[in-house]
């Protein structure tokens, strides 16, 4: 006899997942939402559980997010945090691992992938030295644990997130001595025209700019970090001027002391679970590189599997909220809970909003685009794949030896075969292979994904697997 299954399983408890769960729960459906971290909210709502005072300093987005969390707690939504999806197959079977203790399997009617994004990096010599961290890590450590990684830091890379993090460090009493931005002021200013008519983002941007301008932080445009040096940890960095296309201007390098360097170059969608489920990917620089292709109703190429938020295109919190709503309504339509007429009516404005957010995203992602000139400036002795200690020179060597696809390079030298399973190196690896073989990136096939998608100790995989059935302690 077939047991009752969850109607919808949502993977990821950030904005899109939360908003979707909030809509779906009022329609007599059994919903499961899983998240890898300790609590719902994704990166945007990450706060210290004890230290944050719920009455102060929440912006309107956080307000929406926290209200959603309260909204779904206690309903017919089963919340599983500290839970990772290890496998999805094209029959919508999910294998979950909870707390490194339990394994569960389920086959929901609908899967909504809302797995978010990760930071993207352009490697440089010495970026593996302790003391070089990501801008995202700085933000998470401050927001989640109330710790600043260093009293004094330098921030480098490209994209607007550099300024977000710098402004937060300053607000928290830390010092950012310099921001080295690869873009020119003109490139950055041309971005701001995309903010016209988007009051909240404009206000946020001006607030950040003001905090940085009124601090002792120096801003240096068209500079790139070319090397990090130190005995066993970071002691100094070398920075160089770059030209309009992103190539390093020879002879412009200069060295300065640095104890903590935060780097970031925009974001890459977490497409791995989608690939595993058999969803077609799509490469689009406007969307931040490889993403999971989704139709206008956010259904992927696999019927019954939907995608929302950063994994359909890097675009920020507003886009994720809009897509969470849109995906929920599309799912309700697919399950026969709302008819086509009501669906068209209720999604009209959302579809319009989504287009606007995608437009904003494309301007945002343009600031972090990896040009061939940037790729060319990575020196041969730079480690690309941190897990397997593989250098740029080894990758170039493999390409010269005839490896013309990501999978060929992977087989030859093991790039992307380490414990992070290629999450850090592949976004830049695809650009390197495309650049040196003169192949448009969209013609390359991203590396296939095999379960378990996240590293799990063998003794956990050896545990018995139980069926996960709908179960609502509070509802």
């Amino acid at each position, binding site marked *: 006899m077939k047991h009752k299954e969850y109607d919808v399983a949502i993977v990821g408890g950030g904005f899109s997942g939360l908003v979707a769960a909030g809509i779906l729960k009022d329609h007599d459906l059994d919903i499961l939402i899983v998240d890898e971290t300790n609590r719902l909210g994704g990166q945007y709502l990450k706060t210290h*559980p004890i230290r944050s005072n719920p009455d102060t300093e929440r912006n309107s987005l956080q307000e929406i997010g926290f209200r959603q969390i309260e909204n779904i707690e206690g309903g017919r939504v089963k919340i599983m945090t500290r839970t990772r999806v290890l496998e999805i197959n094209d029959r919508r079977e999910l294998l979950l691992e909870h707390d490194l203790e339990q394994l569960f399997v389920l086959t929901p009617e609908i899967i909504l992938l809302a797995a978010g994004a990760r930071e993207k990096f352009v490697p440089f010599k010495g970026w593996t030295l302790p003391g070089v961290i990501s801008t995202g890590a700085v933000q998470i450590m401050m927001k989640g644990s109330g710790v600043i990684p260093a009293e004094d830091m330098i921030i480098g890379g490209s994209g607007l997130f550099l300024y977000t993090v710098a402004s937060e460090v300053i607000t928290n009493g830390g010092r950012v001595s310099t921001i080295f931005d690869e873009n020119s002021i003109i490139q950055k200013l041309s971005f701001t025209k995309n903010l016209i008519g988007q009051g909240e983002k404009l206000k946020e941007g001006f607030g950040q700019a003001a905090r940085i301008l009124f601090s002792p932080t120096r801003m240096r445009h068209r500079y790139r970090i070319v090397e990090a040096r130190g005995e066993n940890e970071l002691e100094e960095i070398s920075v160089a001027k770059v030209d309009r296309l992103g190539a390093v201007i020879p002879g412009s390098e200069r060295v300065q002391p640095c104890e903590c360097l935060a780097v970031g170059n925009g974001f890459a969608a977490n497409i791995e679970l989608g690939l595993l489920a058999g969803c077609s990917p799509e490469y689009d620089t406007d969307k931040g590189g490889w993403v999971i292709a989704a139709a206008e109703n956010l259904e992927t190429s696999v019927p019954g599997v939907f995608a929302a938020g950063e994994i359909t295109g890097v675009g920020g919190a507003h886009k994720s909220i809009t897509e969470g709503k849109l995906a929920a309504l599309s799912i309700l339509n697919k399950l026969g809970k709302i008819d086509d007429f009501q669906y068209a009516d209720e999604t009209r404005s959302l579809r319009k909003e989504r287009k606007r957010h995608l437009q904003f995203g494309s301007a945002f992602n343009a600031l972090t685009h990896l040009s061939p000139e940037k790729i060319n400036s990575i020196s041969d002795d730079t480690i690309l794949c941190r897990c397997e200690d593989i250098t740029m020179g080894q990758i170039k060597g493999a390409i010269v030896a005839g490896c013309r696809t990501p999978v060929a390079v992977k087989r030859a030298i093991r790039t992307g075969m380490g414990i992070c399973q290629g999450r850090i190196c592949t976004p830049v690896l695809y650009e390197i292979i495309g650049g040196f073989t003169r192949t448009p990136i969209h013609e390359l096939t991203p590396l296939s994904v095999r379960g378990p998608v996240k590293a799990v100790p063998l003794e956990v995989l050896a545990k018995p697997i139980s069926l996960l059935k709908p179960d609502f302690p509070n509802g």
Partner: protein
Amino acid sequence: MSHLRIDAHPSENQVDIYINGEAYTAYEGDTVLAALVASGHKSLRHSRKIGEPRGPLCGMGVCYECLVTINKKPHQRACMTEVEDRMEVLTGEA
């Protein structure tokens, strides 16, 4: 090294942990990574092939650079684990 703490209040629940055998007072809700950073630990392990020192990179569970041994269990992501009273953390894995 309390200067790296943004707003620690004495009223908060303190959590005593041991980092490489040395006592350290963290706060409830801290990640193990934040406790390591706030106590001055930059290098956490060595890379697999060439054995060079490594510290945290992504801070969000993606890069696996912050693997440490927690309560005798090796290869735990410090950034994804919250501190618990009397937790024993060992750095220096290869």
